[in-house]
């Protein structure tokens, strides 16, 4: 029998880096000097109690906060390899969202067909070639492990899918524009354990193509799916490290108290 050789995992390459990032909701400072790397083709989980700033931080990555007046960023998030600061006012947020897409807590398909949901981002970008769209939609649905279930009813309304299918559809939609990073904001909190399992499996697969940043309240989920974990509290980054280290032997007592359920 030929012996199998397991190649060591290549060292992580920097995909993005937040540098001394502050964020203000009006006068309230929600993020305090966050400096943290995000490695390419790895899953980075953001954990912490409600109000710790993890979702706020996540949303900085695709300029979601721009939609509301009175919000202010200080500091930078550099996206590599080009090193552009995506928070720069000169940078078009629409372009950022093409490169960095997002999947939300509750599946939020548009009231359109399955096909049109996935094709949406490409149409916004100005793609209209039928065959190009069909190829992209199929690839995205396959990437989201949904193709087999929906290939015969692409014209059906997306809202008729089950919750888990809808969420995978949203992942397909997020993948269709060939983003570099996909942001997940509590992607399974509205799903049952089986649908959750399939989404987690999917996250493990898509990381070979994209970089994943995920916010989750479910610490076991962070432990299961992520390679790196950041623990945040009251707008501060308390600890960042490899997930297996954070969950086995965190360096900071605050982190340990939180992940062992001693936080109160």
């Amino acid at each position: 029998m030929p012996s199998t050789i397991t190649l060591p995992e290549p060292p992580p390459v920097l995909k993005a880096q937040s540098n001394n990032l502050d964020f203000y909701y009006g006068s309230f400072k929600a993020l305090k000097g966050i400096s943290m790397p995000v490695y390419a083709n790895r899953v980075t989980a953001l954990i912490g109690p409600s109000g710790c700033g993890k979702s706020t931080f996540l949303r900085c990555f695709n300029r979601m906060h721009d939609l509301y007046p009175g919000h202010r960023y200080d500091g930078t998030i550099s996206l590599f390899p080009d090193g552009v600061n995506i928070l720069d006012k000169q940078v078009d947020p629409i372009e950022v969202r093409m490169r960095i897409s997002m999947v939300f807590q509750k599946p939020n398909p548009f009231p359109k067909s399955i096909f049109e949901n996935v094709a949406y981002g490409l149409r916004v970008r100005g793609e209209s070639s039928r065959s190009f769209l069909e190829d992209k939609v199929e690839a995205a649905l396959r990437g989201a492990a949904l193709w087999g279930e929906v290939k015969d009813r692409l014209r059906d309304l997306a809202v008729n899918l089950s919750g888990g299918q809808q969420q995978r559809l949203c992942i397909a939609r997020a993948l269709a524009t060939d983003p570099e990073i996909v942001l997940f904001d509590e992607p399974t909190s509205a799903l049952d354990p089986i649908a959750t399992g399939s989404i987690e499996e999917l996250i493990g697969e898509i990381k070979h193509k994209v970089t994943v940043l995920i916010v989750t309240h479910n610490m076991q989920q962070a432990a299961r799916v992520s390679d790196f974990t950041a623990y945040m509290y009251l707008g501060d980054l308390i600890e960042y490290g490899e997930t297996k280290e954070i969950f086995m032997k965190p360096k900071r007592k605050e982190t340990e108290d939180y992940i062992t359920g001693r936080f109160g």
Partner: protein
Amino acid sequence: MSDKHLSTQFDAELTNISTRVLEMGGLVEHQMAKSIAALAAFDAEQAAQVLREEERVNRMEMEIDRDLSAIIARRQPTARDLRLLIAVSRIIANLERVGDEAARIARVVQRLDAVGLHGRIRPPVSDLNFESELAVALLRKALDAFARLDPVQAVEVLKQDDEIDREFEGLMRKLITYMMEDPRTISTSIDLVFVAKAVERVGDHAKNLAEAIIYIVKGADVRHSPPQQIENAVK
């Protein structure tokens, strides 16, 4: 574990596990002391008591193991809670083996008693006593370090195991001398070699306990590490 979990039930479960580990530790410590006393007095009845207690030790190990599995399944512990449970699993396996060593000594006593050979050799009881006192004291110290989760005391246990090893070597030389001087003592002497080896193994088990305690508190796996590295891990 100084501070409490949000779940008081989880705290209670962990405390209960630790308490039972200490209870099991006390039991094997007692068993060990009794087996040596049985040897010193050639008391077959006392040896039989040691063997009866072994069953209880085995049962305790299985019960604690079962509870460990249940806690892991239900609580999905992390960090120091997880390290505690992993370490406890190792600790009880070592304690159970201490019980086995005591039983081994007890069986030697029964055999010596049955064949009536002990008249031919005056066993180096005081040396054996001394070695076993060291071993039992070390085990007690390790259990004490576990009760207080004290890594500094655990390091002391690791250092003191050398004393037992030295005692063991001395005893070995003495028994070899007996055998050379009078071949009729060979059979008994070999039995006593087993006793001395069993006692020496208890010191090793105490050492394993100490390593598990350092793992719980510091998260460092110091097994097979040189002393300096262990000191650094505990600092």
